[in-house]
């Protein structure tokens, strides 16, 4: 059986203890984990969603700008962090799996481990209070 890299395990532990919504993907963009606060915004429990490719993520959560225009996959902060290996931040709307649309702010960072090993990306996000 494969085992996650230690930095990824530690990042998940941190995410499990923080009350800030956090979302993690592996270098291929596949969903690795999101924490309980993120479940409230994404409208689904991680245990029900499970691993999911990046393309599916975009389809699943229907990201849109403030005027209702769809946001391209490559414009999403988590995808920018993953592909360009730099931090990225923006506001956007998503529709959770519970069918509710929410405005959120996302900051995503590439996850780079010891010896410059690229391990994926992590996104911190926040629902904007109405």
């Amino acid at each position: 059986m494969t085992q996650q890299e230690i930095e990824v395990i530690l990042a998940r532990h941190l995410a499990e203890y923080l009350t800030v919504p956090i979302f993690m993907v592996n270098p291929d963009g596949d969903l690795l984990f999101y924490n309980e606060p993120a479940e409230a915004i994404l409208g689904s429990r991680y245990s029900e969603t499970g691993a999911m490719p990046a393309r599916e993520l975009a389809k699943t959560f229907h990201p849109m700008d403030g005027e209702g225009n769809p946001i391209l996959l490559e414009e999403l902060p988590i995808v920018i962090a993953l592909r360009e290996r730099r931090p990225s931040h923006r506001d956007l709307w998503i529709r959770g799996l519970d069918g509710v649309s929410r405005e959120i702010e996302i900051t995503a960072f590439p996850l780079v481990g010891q010896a410059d090993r690229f391990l994926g990306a992590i996104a911190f996000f926040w629902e904007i209070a109405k």
Partner: protein
Amino acid sequence: MKVTFWGTRGSLASPSAETVRYGGNTSCVAVEGSAGTTLILDAGTGLRNLGQSLPTDLKRVDILLTHLHMDHIQGLPFFAPLRRPGVEVHIWGPASTTLSLTERLQRYLSPPLFPVSVRDLSENLHFHELPGKLPGQFIEIGEFSINAQLIIHPNPTIGYRVQCADTALTYMPDHEPALGEQTFPHEREWTSGYALAEGCDLLIHDAQFTNEEYKSRVGFGHSSIRQAFQFAELTHVKQFAPFHYDPAHTDDDLDRMLAEAVAELHPSYKMTPSREGLTLEVDC
């Protein structure tokens, strides 16, 4: 492979009449291969005695450091082969994001903390940084193939899986796989050290604390004896050697704590407590 324990204690050398059976020297294990290659796992205070036992015609020795905490490097300047002309000493260990392995060792091995600088120890000293950039990368040393991966312990710390043909030894002297877990053991995929230990013939693993001690030392980077037994069960090892004993635990304490763990957990593997001077033959 032949595995000999030269130091089994954690944190601080603890020689006394009460630690004479399990030993008072800090982490150091020798691994000898069937073709004569010698590996040394960590350079705690046990390294001094080990160095004196090595054959005088030794040409090369490799020291694999898990990390650079004092109890794992303190024996280094007292390693006799460093002063023998013609002996190549290779030191493998973790770098940091900002300093090389040599620079990190230099912080301890230089005045005023130590009178001799690391670069003056030997002209035939070679440093190698781990882990490599590629996941699952193996180092080949003689008849051994070694997998080095980061494991949970403060500051970058490496666990080793030393493979010889179909035989594997896993060495994780300082390891807290239960850190952050609500229940332990948890999912294998998300357990630190799982890939290194899975199905190995001999697991040498941190067994520093009692359950009670662990409660007030979460995050120190060590396991309770119970957690170590559970990790061994999770990873389906064939034999488990508890290691890195707390300096406060006497021989009698360890006898009692290990017996209690066996009685409570009924391990499916063979449990052999590590003790200074013990040699285990693991098929190779």
